[in-house]
């Protein structure tokens, strides 16, 4: 008999898992909702006055909603992983797909692809929504870095999602990951965010967000920055994979 547990079969199964849990699928949709909602809440009122100060990179200002959008992405990654640890649900998953690397890889692929597709859409939504209210400070899609930033936003969101998923597999708890990552991104990174030199540059969120700048600051460029985030993500995914393979379920 030929193997029934094929890669497409496990991918389909992982997609059903995400679709069928409100907290997971809801977090994924929240990426879009936050992109549109925050942009609509911010740019009609303070979009132009803030741009006028000239303190900010005109492109990066457009992605102000990213501060909140990425929290939805982190939640999506964390809940997609933690749903396997609730009540020992992983035992059912592993009885059906005993190859742990296949199970983990399929989940990462589905979660990553979902976040990438939704993230790119969110990137364009943020870009066009903000520009609609920025008047003379608007950035055209043909201007340098604009298109890159739209796709880059999606790439960044996919990487952050997988970073969170890998950590959750390692720690087996969404609460632990969310209560570490969210304060970290909201407070620590925000506080030291003004410092564009030194360690802060290499943090997973700071580095990856360089792709949203017209003129990336500091030492990292747009693509090297996202590459640094990709390394963080790869490390987290490997740690999660190690935990899934090694531990008793």
């Amino acid at each position, binding site marked *: *008999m030929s193997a029934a547990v094929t890669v497409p079969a496990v991918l389909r199964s992982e997609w059903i898992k995400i679709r069928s849990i409100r907290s997971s699928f809801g977090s994924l949709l929240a990426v879009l909702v936050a992109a549109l909602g925050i942009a609509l809440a911010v740019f009609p009122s303070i979009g132009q006055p803030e741009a006028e100060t000239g303190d900010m990179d005109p492109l990066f200002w457009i992605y102000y909603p990213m501060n909140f959008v990425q929290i939805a992405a982190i939640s999506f990654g964390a809940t997609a992983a933690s749903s396997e640890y609730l009540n*020992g649900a992983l035992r059912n998953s592993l009885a*059906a*797909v005993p190859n742990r690397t296949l199970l983990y890889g399929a989940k990462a692929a589905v979660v990553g692809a979902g976040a990438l597709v939704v993230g790119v859409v969110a990137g364009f939504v943020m870009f066009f929504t903000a520009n609609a209210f920025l008047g003379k400070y608007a950035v055209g899609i043909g201007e340098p870095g604009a298109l890159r930033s739209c796709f880059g936003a999606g790439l960044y969101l996919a990487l952050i999602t997988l970073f969170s998923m890998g950590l959750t597999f390692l720690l087996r708890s969404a609460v632990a990951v969310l209560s570490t990552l969210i304060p970290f991104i909201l407070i620590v990174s925000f506080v030291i965010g003004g410092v564009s030199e030194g360690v802060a540059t290499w943090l997973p969120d700071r580095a990856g967000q360089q792709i949203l700048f017209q003129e990336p600051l500091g030492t990292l460029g747009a693509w090297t920055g996202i590459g640094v985030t990709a390394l963080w993500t790869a490390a987290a995914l490997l740690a999660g994979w190690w935990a899934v393979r090694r531990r008793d379920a």
Partner: protein
Amino acid sequence: MTSIDVKNLTKEYGGRRPARAVDGLTFRVEPGRVTGFLGPNGAGKSTTMRLVLGLDRPTSGTATIGGRPYVTLDDPLRTVGALLDAQAAHPARTGRDHLRFLAASNGLPDRRVDEVLEETGLTSAARRRIRRYSLGMRQRLGIAAALLGDPGVLMLDEPANGLDPEGIVWIRGLLRRLAAEGRTVLVSSHLMNETATFADHLVVLGRGRLLADVPMREFIDAHSHARVRVRTGDPVRLRATLLAKGWTVGDAADGDGRWVVEGASAEEIGAVTAREGIPVFELADERASLEQAYLALTAEAAEFTATRTASSTPSPQEV
């Protein structure tokens, strides 16, 4: 057909002072019969099942299904159906979605999902979230998941847990039918009287070790002694006759003039009373229950362990 083979299986938990949940276990579960998997809580039944499914890694030894470790099976759900813990399902999913993702991963059609929902009586609750299921419904969902791939081997941990009386009758019939179809059925339980209603064969564990691997009838006979219930119209003569033959006679617990003769069979007593012309109204072998046989065995095992511990003085490192 496929059998489950456990060979020298050992699982230790903990680092510095490891505890053995399963200790050098060897047994085989054969197709075509229901094998009851017995032992007190903590005896290692669930650990053994997890090891067979490759969920936990054995410290040493092997567990195979038809000669292959579970993790190497091409078609796991069509080979083995397992119910380990009915609570191990995400409460936010509907019962149907829970089965759908399992089915999808093994290339099983959604039609099978609806079939097993029907078979386990969950069709009307299929689109309800699992968090709103009763204990019995979760148990039925776990059994539905085990049946999904129509597997040749079934491994069910306490399947009757939480089922209502109607459900218990249903599961009994289901287990009998699955075995009659030639499947390998391993069912753990700590309820002896319940196990007695469906098991043909028994594997009994105590503290991670194998205490017995025998047909149920043989197990009961081996761990109980013969006794006969008798009611007579002539107590004086019967008592005198039986005592003369060296049997002990006592009143049966339910009284009513019935006696219990220890160490005798109905054939023996029947022959004696016929020869003596003593009128007998009632004569029957008293079969020990599985529960009594099991308790006798575990008492023996406890005694064995106690004797062994007392006779050997382990060095401090060994403790």
